[in-house]
């Protein structure tokens, strides 16, 4: 792990086998804050939603237009190219290769872009209505192709008896080489679940290596370089955040702290970066200084979180988001109870909606994962 930190200047988009994945080394600060947070949760039952950072009252959130320039959406074409290189180099004879990323890790985009660049046909996931009806026609209609790609396997099953039959037949055919050579994109939580349901131990599985703080600094500060005289200061130390300063501080840098908190996931780190960026209320003319808040303003779950909420969160992670109708089919309580729990979690900003599906919000992902780990639920390998 320490060796990885020393070599952090390596590529941001390093595709590795899942066994080689490692999370960024935790900083002393992230360890200390973890213990303080745990103690506070025990003592008070809840965590303060806001902690005061330096000069926080003199700072304000950035307008969405500016944020879109400073922290633009991640361009997944570069990891798609890295995936292509790795597949061509070492996995060109395998019938199926999995490409797994955690929530907000971009595997559907990466696999789709790779398929488009290599003119590989995409297999479409079945509609949720098909899964709810327990139909497996989508598998029966598949024919053998030279190469194919399935961007999001998590959309091909539901966690109930009927809902896993289709994906089981599909994977049996695919792993047996009856469909041709394929690349399957999959969410890391769905992958962990399907490993138990179907058994994927012998299937080559790739992922993106965890991002270190130094790489985050280069990515985020570099993304905003188009702006003239852009300087980002740390609200914790008051010092400017530059790639060089982060390199010098290495293990205790603000970005290493962020990387460790996000388990090296760029998609989640970007959400924190957008949320933490501030500008002075009174900006001096010609100057474009920005501040990075120290506090991670995230929705937290308390230790008293009940079973119903915990099971809803776990179900949503296993499926990488679900609509209300599908959620009610995979949790062991009534539709009404499931809806109530989902709405309560939405009010707490633990969940957010995307394309009609409810999913764990990026700013609460770390907290939810920690809760599920502490309660012995199945968690993802990343």
């Amino acid at each position, binding site marked *: 792990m320490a060796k990885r930190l020393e070599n952090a200047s390596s590529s941001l988009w390093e595709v590795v086998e899942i066994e080689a994945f490692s999370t960024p080394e935790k900083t002393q600060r992230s360890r200390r804050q973890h213990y303080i947070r745990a103690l506070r949760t*025990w003592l008070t039952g809840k965590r303060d939603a806001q902690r005061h950072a330096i000069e926080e009252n003199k700072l304000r959130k950035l307008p969405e237009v500016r944020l879109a320039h400073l922290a633009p959406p991640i361009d997944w074409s570069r990891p798609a190219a890295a995936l292509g290189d790795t597949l061509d180099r070492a996995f060109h004879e395998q019938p199926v290769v999995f490409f797994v990323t955690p929530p907000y890790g971009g595997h559907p985009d990466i696999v789709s872009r790779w398929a488009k660049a290599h003119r590989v046909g995409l297999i479409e996931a079945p509609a949720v209505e098909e899964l709810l009806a327990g139909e497996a026609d989508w598998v029966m209609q598949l024919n053998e192709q030279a190469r194919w790609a399935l961007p999001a396997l998590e959309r091909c099953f539901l*966690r*109930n*008896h009927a*809902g*896993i039959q289709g994906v089981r037949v599909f994977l049996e055919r695919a792993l047996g080489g009856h469909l041709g050579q394929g690349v399957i994109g999959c969410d890391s939580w769905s992958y962990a679940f399907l490993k*138990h*349901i179907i058994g994927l131990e012998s299937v080559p599985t790739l992922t993106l290596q965890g991002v270190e703080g130094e790489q985050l600094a280069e990515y985020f500060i570099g993304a905003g370089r188009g702006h003239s005289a852009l300087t980002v200061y740390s609200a914790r130390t008051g010092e400017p955040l530059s790639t060089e300063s982060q390199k010098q501080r290495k293990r205790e840098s603000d970005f290493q702290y962020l990387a460790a908190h996000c388990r090296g996931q760029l998609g989640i780190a970007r959400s924190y970066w957008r949320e933490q960026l501030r500008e002075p209320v009174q900006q001096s003319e010609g100057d474009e200084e920005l501040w990075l808040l120290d506090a991670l303003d995230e929705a937290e779950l308390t*230790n008293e979180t009940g*079973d119903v909420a915990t*099971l809803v969160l*776990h*179900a949503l992670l296993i499926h990488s988001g679900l609509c209300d109708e599908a959620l009610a089919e*995979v*949790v*062991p309580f009534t539709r009404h109870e499931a809806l109530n729990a989902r709405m309560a979690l939405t009010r707490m900003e633990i969940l957010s909606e995307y394309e009609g599906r409810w999913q764990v919000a990026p700013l609460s992902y770390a907290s939810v994962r920690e809760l599920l780990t*502490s*309660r*012995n*639920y*199945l968690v993802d390998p990343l």
Partner: protein
Amino acid sequence: MEERKKYAELFNDIDSGTVITVGLILLATVLLIVLSQRGLNWLANRLHGQLRFRVFALVPLTRLLILIAAIVLIVPMIIDPSLRNMVTLFGALGLAIGFALKDYVSSLIAGVVSAVELPYRPGDWVQIEDAYGEVKHVGMRTVHIQTPDDDLVAMPHLKLWDTPVYNANNGGPSLQCVASFYLCVEDAAGWVRQALKDVALTSAYLRFDAPIIVVAEEKPWGTHYRIRAYPVDPRQQFLFITDLTVRAKQVLGQAGIKTAHLPPDTALDAGEVTSGPSKPRG
């Protein structure tokens, strides 16, 4: 007169200072016991998994240590701890206990043994005689078991001497549950086995790092299937069994698998092996 003088020699001269010191030690003992019991229970109830059970296990042990410390401090203040005095004192005590307080003292001693051997600790799911439930409190004389019907059973520790204690999770989070199905299966036995395993694999309560076993046993009236699996938390055992039962019945019903009809006398015998946590039932 001579006998009275002999017993009086057992004790030290007790002045007001000694009485106050003993009183303070007793007060401190009670306070420490109350604080440690409440504090450890409070802490354990905020934890999950193995750590929760480890903290629970400290509850009776801490109380025992505090009591031993108090006795070690108080006894030399009251009694001259010579061999002759001890033999006399224990002889007199033994006589009284043998006649009047045999069971009470036996329970107290068994309580000390239970704090050391840990046949049960708070958070465990145990069956002692007819009582099955979660151990809520391990006291000096009794263990308090909360049954699924929300009854609190105070079971004296002396049961330890001659009654088997069935501990379903033994200080850990792994507790096997069994869901039973009585089916009339002709040639779909393999399909039923896979279907029941899938039902367990897709349960929201399933603990994935423990095995799932489907057992089929042929009976004169049909086939007795059992799913043996583990919930994430022992407290979810009844919800887990219910979830397995409800969803398995739905899957089997949709596939046209019929329930076996038991003859009345067999049905009465089978009452002992209905669904429940995996342990002998009374």
